[in-house]
């Protein structure tokens, strides 16, 4: 019955009674907006200065910070039972496992006894087109008269083993 009474109140019985003032949420929101502006302007600065590290930090570093703030201040994950953290982390671990298991195959275009010539050729072709100023018609450029098959090949179908 005690559980029923708590449920009727709309409250849990897991100690999640961290009551914030409304101003706390507005302040959090303001911080998130400032971070959003930095994440938009940062890559522009990175491009202008040629420093890719600025783009990486301001775009992806700040995305992680923003996510952390939402998780903590809006979702209140830190007030949850420890086992909730465990199964969320397990999901992230599966994601990392997937990435590191598959990435070596996807991200490399050559190995000890094989070479994906089509992928290399495709990358060179597109880069040459854009360098010449002719590659910005639209994305369908890559899928039009020459793209679809070659693009498919470029992702491994035509990997040449030798």
């Amino acid at each position, binding site marked *: 019955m005690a*559980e*029923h009474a708590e*449920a009727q*109140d*709309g*409250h*849990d*019985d*897991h100690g999640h009674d961290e009551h*914030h003032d*409304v101003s706390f*949420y*507005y302040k959090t*929101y303001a911080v998130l*907006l400032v971070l*959003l502006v930095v*994440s*938009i302007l940062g*890559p522009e600065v990175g*491009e202008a200065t040629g420093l890719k590290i600025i*783009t990486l930090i301001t*775009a*992806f570093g700040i*995305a992680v910070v923003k*996510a952390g703030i*939402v*998780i903590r201040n*809006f*979702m209140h994950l830190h007030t*949850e*039972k420890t086992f*909730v953290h465990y*199964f*969320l982390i397990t*999901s*992230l671990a*599966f*994601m*990392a496992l*997937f*990435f590191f298991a598959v*990435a070596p195959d*996807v*991200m*490399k275009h050559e190995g000890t006894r094989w070479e994906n010539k089509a*992928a290399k050729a*495709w*990358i060179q072709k*597109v*880069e040459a087109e*854009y360098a010449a100023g002719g590659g910005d*018609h*639209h*994305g*369908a*450029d*890559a*899928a039009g008269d020459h*793209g679809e098959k070659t693009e498919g090949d470029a*992702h491994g179908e035509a990997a040449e083993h030798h």
Partner: protein
Amino acid sequence: MGFRPIANTRSATGIMTAKLAIWWLIASEIVIFGGLLASYLMHRLAHPEWGYYAEHTNVYAGSLNTFILLTSSLFAVLAHHAAQQGDGKKAARNLLITCGFGLGFLVVKSLEWSSEISHGYTITANTFWSFYYTAAGIHGAHVIIGMACMLWVANTARQGKELHRVENVGLYWHFVDLVWIFLFPLLYIAK
């Protein structure tokens, strides 16, 4: 005492079962979106030419949608705050505002897609655009589902019933916001 679903009245683990289910849902969604984003990331790193394709995404639309979703998350947590105070009407109002921002997100997204498709950047243009439409499309579907759930929860909250659902639907909405926080730099910023 009237009938109430057992998920709303039992908390064998120390967390109300309904809320625990939301956390499990989020854990499963991490694998779904995580797999998609990890696939995108490894392809993106392997194909520098995708940077040229990414130049054709609309950073202004992406930024506006990030702003919209962050604002919607604010109102979702304000709804939770109102529910904690036992103010169902205020919680319902904040949930409806959250829904309004969700609708705004979809409008911006549909305008953005219309423009891109009309310029030839379709889902079959190349693998970058396939990922772009798949990731943003699945995310958009989650926005629609979240809005439908919020309308339902707002209806019960307005009557002062089942106020704990406000937090549960809010958790889901914050997760949808989180996914966009990572989609934004991946699809729009990284050139």
